[in-house]
């Protein structure tokens, strides 16, 4: 697959010997305008890649924070069509790599071919589909490849014996899920990270980023030692919930603090 913004960003990070900061926000939560501002601000504040969550009525991989954000976004009329329009506006202002995190039904019903064509057209670099395992990826892989969009693979602490198979086909980066279960801020992790990451480092020939549960500069810094980047979602979405239209300033503070922690030697 041809390189896109995402691959270039990981190459730059590697040459600078820096960790990737990947942030997540639910698209349309608080309105498109707020999402748009937050994305531009996060890119300025040190986020290397940004995931936009496409709201779904039944997000089975999400914990309560993102579930509620998804509900709020749907309630105020957010649609995939609207999100694509917003991405077009964002793309006029930034070249930060953008990913869509979404459920398979949204792609399927929109029309897989049409969806990936639209991703390419508007400037999306990858998709993360948490309810589509390796065994069912043919559902979208052909179209994703055709339009040069990464279909990001996930591995979890319950992926024993599957990491080699999944890594072999993975492109972009490998999404390492820190804990079994759903998204959400955690105060502690039960996973034994050294043994979780051992097979990942053995088999994965692409950048690896860890997500699910990371919510502070300390935990981001700590988790970054195991891989090439960290993913932060619920902690940011929580700020949107709490500060609403004033969330952007809070997100800026938070993202800056994570960036600073990751860049400390």
């Amino acid at each position, binding site marked *: 697959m041809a390189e896109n913004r995402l691959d270039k960003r990981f190459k730059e990070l590697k040459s600078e010997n820096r960790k990737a900061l990947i942030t997540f926000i639910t698209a349309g939560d608080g309105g498109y305008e707020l999402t748009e501002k937050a994305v531009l601000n996060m890119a300025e504040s040190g986020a290397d890649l940004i995931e936009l969550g496409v709201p*779904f*009525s*039944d*997000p*089975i*991989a999400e*914990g*309560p924070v993102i*579930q509620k954000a998804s*509900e709020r976004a*749907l309630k105020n009329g957010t*649609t*995939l*069509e609207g999100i694509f329009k917003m991405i077009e506006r964002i793309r006029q202002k930034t070249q930060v790599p953008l990913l869509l995190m979404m459920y*398979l*039904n*949204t792609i*399927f*019903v*929109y029309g897989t071919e049409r969806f990936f064509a639209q991703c390419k057209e508007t400037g999306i670099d990858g998709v993360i589909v*948490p*309810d*589509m*395992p*390796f*065994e*069912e990826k043919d*559902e979208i892989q052909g179209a994703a490849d055709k339009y040069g969009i990464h279909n990001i693979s*996930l*591995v*979890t602490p*319950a*992926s*024993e*014996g*599957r990491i080699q198979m*999944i890594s072999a086909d993975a492109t972009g980066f490998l999404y390492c*899920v820190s804990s*079994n*279960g*759903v998204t959400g801020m955690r105060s502690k992790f039960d996973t034994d990270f050294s043994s979780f990451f051992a097979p990942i480092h053995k088999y994965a020939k692409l950048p690896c980023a860890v997500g699910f549960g990371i919510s502070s500069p300390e935990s981001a810094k700590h988790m970054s030692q195991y891989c090439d980047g960290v993913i932060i979602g619920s902690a940011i979405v929580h700020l949107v919930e709490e500060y609403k239209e004033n969330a952007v300033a809070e997100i800026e503070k938070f993202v800056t603090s994570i960036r600073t922690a990751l860049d400390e030697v």
Partner: protein
Amino acid sequence: MEKIGRFADIFGGQYVPETVMNAVHELEEAYNRYKNDEEFLEEYRTICREYAGRPSLLYYADRMTKDLGGCKVYLKREDLNHTGAHKINNVLGQILLAKRMGKKRIIAETGAGQHGVATATACALFGLECEVYMGAEDVERQKLNVYRMELLGAKVVSVNSGTGTLKDAINEAMRDWATNIDTTYYLIGSVMGPHPYPEMVRDFQKIISEEAREQILEKEGKLPDCVVACVGGGSNAMGMFYNFIPDKSVRLVGAEAAGKGVDTEYHAATMAKGTLGIFHGMKSYFLQNEEGQIAPVYSISAGLDYPGVGPEHAALRDTGRADYVSITDEEAVQALEYLSRIEGIIPAIESAHAIAAALKIIPTMDKNQIMIICISGRGDKDMQQIAKYRGVKIDG
């Protein structure tokens, strides 16, 4: 060649998060090992007989037959099973499997509460920890079943997210499963979810049609002309249809919930109004909007209040082997009252949908023809709902 876990090459699949894939494969392997294991099957048949009260009766509804003046009507009495519905057949099978897999904690989802009660019952019987997810709305309208589950030692978790009904209970059970994947067995109650559930649940329910086929041949010396069952996710219907599928002369009819009418916003008529989608681990028909958001559904029957349908039913419909009709709340309540008065059998409001569908077909059939209706459950749990629907106050 049929793909593994697919029906008619399209429906089914394993669309679940990576976290549960090893568990899904582990279940698949365990099920494939035991489904033809004589010792396992003998244990299943024994517990169905000694504990659940099988075989269930095939009852000739004489007064109903005479009253309607069409074909001969038989009722397959799943309502007489222990715990009052067909749900126990599947639960006992899966519990025996979970036990062999060394699982100690069982979780389940429930709509009307019948699957939850059956699961709580089997967990009590085998001394397993049991947690049942139930939509907040359903907890409210099925209080009696909530109390039964708790009495049996299960923990009932009321689910407030989304629409607070069956689909949300399934979402929450799936989240629990992903979180506690090492210890927990997810006991799905219908012919839905990722492979191998649709196939496995059907196999544990097909005992209904195995018995019915034998019983009717014994009583009448011939096969029925029509078999009718209600369809939510579709487990009693798959069980009632399965052994008749190769008998091409037997018409198969599924009755789904039309609520206040399929042209209103208040129904759960997936076959009439659904479109192809991917949700809850399977590719099948779902009620959803043009952007693929799963629609809120409605039916007087909590057990049929689901926005999708099992993948094998989707295949049976698309291949033309089975027909599906939609029955409104009003038609179902009238059918419940009719059967109560004419045969002294109070069916579950779910099963009443099958009866209502049958009431439309029976008069069009000939008197030497035969119909079997599956009475999937008994109506005790619904009395408060029906009274409320009819404007009768029965609360103290």
